[in-house]
């Protein structure tokens, strides 16, 4: 890349010619405040907070989109610039509820931080405020458009990174707002519940549907036997809620904190992640050897499953019928577990802690219940668990490491890596290879499916079968790209892994929030940092293949029989439904308006 010299507040700095002024300023050690800007997600120059003066350019310019050029002279802290930035934020605040004390984002709000950094002590402008009803239509996501500052990060992530496109701009001028079309709620359109919009929202306009209250109630109920499972990616990020460096694995402390919160048993989704590998792995083997529908596509990401139901209904037959680890756990929690422990299944209250908001939807799917009671009663996000630990006054950072309860708390390294893109594929191959070939896998770690490239491919030579071609996609736009390849028959794969969120579950919509400033400060993608914790967990285990999990062998021996057997089929497998764009018809009134 060609280098150019620019002068920022008189500081001479040499930067590649594709840099923006904002990026060049960072290199010159100058921190220009931003708001709508989010690295790799949203760079549109809309919020006018990163304004700077550029010599020979008219007016003030948004540094996040202004390209550098040779000899460019930029001034970032003139009186005009400082006053404009401050007034822009004052204007935003004048149309904001200012309910900071009771807002879910208080002390973690990018607007709040910005107002403080800019020295705003009062809001000189008063006038009309836009108020909207809170959108409670979704099982996963709550939208409070009154708090929205129209930065459009959610729109960018929903339309570009995820290619779902349920969020867009509505109306114009002062009445501009963000939302799904035709005044529908997010629960009434083809939202996948992935929650990426929550992850990027700088304010409290988007959050998950709260399940903490019902969990507190269950914990306080002496008649309930409350058990909890924690997904692999939770332990890779929960520490961030308590100020630990990103990428710190906190499995032991997480288990200890859950015990202190009062859960009767602390189990681990890793157990059913291993079980998923056995069931799904055997499904792959069956389809490979008996000429079944190929490629087999993973189904453990509920955001991806719903995306597929809306956008690629013709590929639903390709989805593995195996339930996700959360739901396999739920099914066993209400059958196998009470039966072996000799307790009343009705007294069991099953809670899961997930990096995911779509799991809140998944647990409510009608397929996911037995005799009218859901297999999973409550789904907490990593953030919600963090909040509960804080509410209980537990000193998380200084907790001792504790181990999860047996048998449903036992998992292998293969289960740990479920939390990263490529992880399910890698875990499945560790088992499928050995089952088909009858030989140990030469190298456990499958490098081509690791990393953050959007679509990854690998070809394996499996003795007794031959070439197995696999592909991995993360982020729904990448998934869509890969699915079109499959639809058009351009490439023949045997097995495909899809995770809805960028980076896989570590980047899930329920994970601790990473602000724009933190993303800029990181040298690499935040998902990559969390992934390191996941791989470290795997490497630290002696058991790294799902079929080596003794608790899994036990559950088959004692209860399930054999993989893909009748009991498995009943408890551990599911089906999917094709879905349209809207869950409800367009209201009559809207129709009339559009005709006008």
């Amino acid at each position: 890349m060609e280098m150019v010299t620019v002068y920022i507040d008189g500081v001479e700095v040499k930067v590649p010619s594709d840099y923006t002024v904002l990026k060049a300023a960072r290199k010159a050690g100058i921190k220009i405040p931003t708001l709508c800007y989010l690295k790799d997600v949203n760079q549109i120059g809309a919020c006018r907070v990163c304004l700077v003066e550029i010599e020979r350019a008219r007016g003030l310019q948004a540094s996040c989109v202004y390209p550098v050029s040779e000899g460019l002279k930029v001034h970032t802290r003139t009186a005009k610039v400082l006053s404009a930035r401050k007034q822009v934020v004052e204007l935003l605040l004048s149309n904001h509820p200012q309910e900071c004390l009771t807002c879910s984002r208080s002390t973690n709000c990018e607007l709040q931080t910005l107002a403080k950094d800019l020295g705003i002590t009062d809001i000189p402008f008063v006038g009309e405020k836009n108020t909207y009803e809170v959108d409670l239509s979704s099982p996963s996501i709550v939208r409070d458009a009154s708090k929205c500052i129209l930065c459009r990060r959610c729109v960018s992530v929903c339309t570009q990174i995820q290619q779902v496109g349920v969020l867009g701009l509505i109306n114009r001028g002062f009445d501009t707002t963000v939302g799904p079309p035709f005044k529908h709620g997010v629960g009434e359109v083809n939202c996948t519940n992935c929650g990426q919009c929550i992850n990027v929202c700088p304010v409290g306009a988007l959050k998950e549907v709260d399940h903490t209250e019902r969990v507190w109630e269950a914990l306080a109920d002496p008649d309930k036997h409350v058990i909890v499972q924690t997904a692999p990616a939770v332990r890779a990020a929960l520490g961030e809620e308590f100020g630990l460096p990103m990428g710190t694995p906190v499995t032991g402390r997480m288990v200890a904190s859950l015990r202190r919160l009062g859960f009767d048993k602390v189990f681990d989704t890793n157990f059913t992640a291993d079980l998923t590998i056995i069931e799904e792995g055997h499904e792959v083997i069956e389809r490979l050897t008996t000429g079944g529908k190929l490629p087999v596509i993973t189904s453990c990401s509920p955001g991806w499953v719903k995306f597929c139901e809306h956008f690629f209904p013709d590929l639903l037959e390709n989805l593995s019928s195996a339930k996700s680890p959360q739901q396999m756990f739920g099914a066993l929690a209400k059958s196998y577990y009470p039966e072996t422990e000799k307790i009343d299944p009705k007294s069991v209250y099953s809670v899961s802690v997930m990096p995911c908001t779509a799991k809140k939807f998944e647990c409510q799917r009608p397929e996911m219940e037995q005799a009218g009671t859901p297999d999973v009663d409550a789904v907490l996000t990593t953030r919600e668990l963090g909040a509960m630990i804080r509410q209980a006054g537990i000193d998380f950072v200084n907790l001792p490491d504790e181990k999860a309860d047996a048998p449903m708390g036992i998992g292998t390294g293969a289960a740990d890596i479920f939390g990263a893109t490529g992880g399910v594929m890698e875990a499945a191959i560790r088992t499928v290879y050995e089952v088909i070939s009858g030989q140990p896998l030469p190298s456990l770690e499958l490098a081509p499916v690791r990393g953050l490239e959007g679509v990854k491919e690998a070809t394996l030579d499996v003795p007794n079968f031959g070439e197995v071609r696999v592909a991995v996609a993360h982020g729904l736009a990448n998934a869509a790209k890969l699915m079109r390849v499959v639809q058009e028959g351009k490439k023949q794969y045997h097995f495909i892994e899809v995770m809805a969120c960028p980076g896989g579950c570590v980047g899930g919509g329920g994970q601790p929030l990473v602000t724009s400033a933190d993303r800029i400060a990181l040298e690499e993608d935040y998902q990559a940092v969390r992934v390191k914790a996941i791989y470290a967990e795997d490497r630290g285990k002696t058991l790294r293949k799902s079929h080596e999990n003794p608790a899994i062998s036990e559950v088959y021996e004692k209860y399930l029989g054999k993989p893909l057997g009748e009991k498995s089929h009943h408890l551990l497998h599911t089906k999917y439904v094709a879905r349209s764009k809207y869950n409800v018809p367009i209201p009559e009134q809207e129709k009339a308006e559009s005709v006008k």
Partner: protein
Amino acid sequence: MDFNRAHVLEMEDIAFFKPQKRVALENCGLIDPESIEEYIAKDGYFALAKCVSEMTPGAVIEEITKSGLRGRGGAGFPTGTKWAFAAPEVADQKYVVCNADEGDPGAFMDRSVLEGDPHRVLEAMAIAGYAIGASQGFIYIRAEYPIAVERLRLAIRQAQELGVLGKNIFGSSFSFNIELRLGAGAFVCGEETALLASTEGRRGEPRPRPPFPAVSGLFEKPTVINNVETLANIPKIIRMGADWFSAMGTERSKGTKVFALAGKINNIGLIEVPMGTTLETVINEVGGGIQGGKKFKAAQIGGPSGGCLTSAHLGVAIDYESLTQAGAMMGSGGLIVMDEDTCMVDIARFFLEFTQEESCGKCPPCRIGTKRMLEILDKITTGNGTMEDLDHLETLAETIRDSSLCALGQTAPNPVLSTIKNFRDEYEAHILEKRCPSGVCLSLLSYTIDPEKCIGCGLCAKACPVEAISGVIKEPHSIDQSKCIKCGACMDTCKFSAISKK
């Protein structure tokens, strides 16, 4: 028989036409716009023929540059320079886009050209296409111009049938085609990047520049966007030469400009005068002076984003620079003349209300800032304003001007800034004396009955729609101010001039 052989006046003999010079409007009203033959009879498509057969693309750009033609859509960017930016760009596809999204209230110069002389625009677009190496043109036109749309469609078809649009025009290797894109009437789509977004089928809202459309425009391809009136000048410049064109106008603003003359003036309608004509000539000679012999107070020039000029500016020779210097702008050429009965605070409020409603909502200064300005103006015009509000109004206006994303926001405060500058006393009268000097702002008005003049006929009481007037017949009546809605019906009915408003 004895014929009255009275002399039929030449156009030049009529005061309205005398100072005018028609270039862009040359054929409007003279030829049948639905006949390509009539356009050709007026030398139509000769310029295009000259370009493709005798001139290199570089020579065409050179000629336009030399003519000094500047964009007639608002900013006045030199047209030749714009073309010269796009010409060297290497791309598999380039575009010429005609901005026919005329949105200023009361402005209809582009509509006139499109309805009266559509081929002129097509010819100019083809010339632009030849100059920059584009083979496809789009006309982005508002759907509210159905006649213009229909005539453009017909004109495109005729031009294609005759081969002046399409493949290998005039037997050359140059091919060019034009399609229409209909806009849904958003004012902001006149801003070029918003126009491009809308043409592509996305929400019509601007994006920051650079990259400029000449480098990355429609579908991210190099694109030249010219306004209708700009294009309407092109064929004649090619035919008559750059020197002919640059002989008209001032040092930096060449040629003529079409204005939509409106307001309290005797002759309203489209006029086309050479650049450099004074405001006085436009108002008093072409416009025939103020209606009813009243006093000229101000002229809003440049549409809702323009500024107000006062009697102190009557001698200003109208061109891009002088208008900017006077706190207004050329804009697309709206010219609204106001007399002594106009309240300048109310006028500023009126224009700001328009731009506020038309804001796309992308950036906070325009989206929220103009709303807050409007709220302050509401306070002032209803007698609730403070001097602190006036300060807020000014600082807000400056911030919005400096920090908005596009020209809509950057220029939205102009009417407020220019009226504060030129008519500060009116603002102060509203704030300090709770008085509207022009008697326009209803909240600050009161109707009163002069007991000396009132004979107690009771007509006013009958006319009053809200029964605010009471009194005994043959005795002076009075108005209950708490009930009065200030409709003025009483004043209209009184035969004794006993009712006054102040």
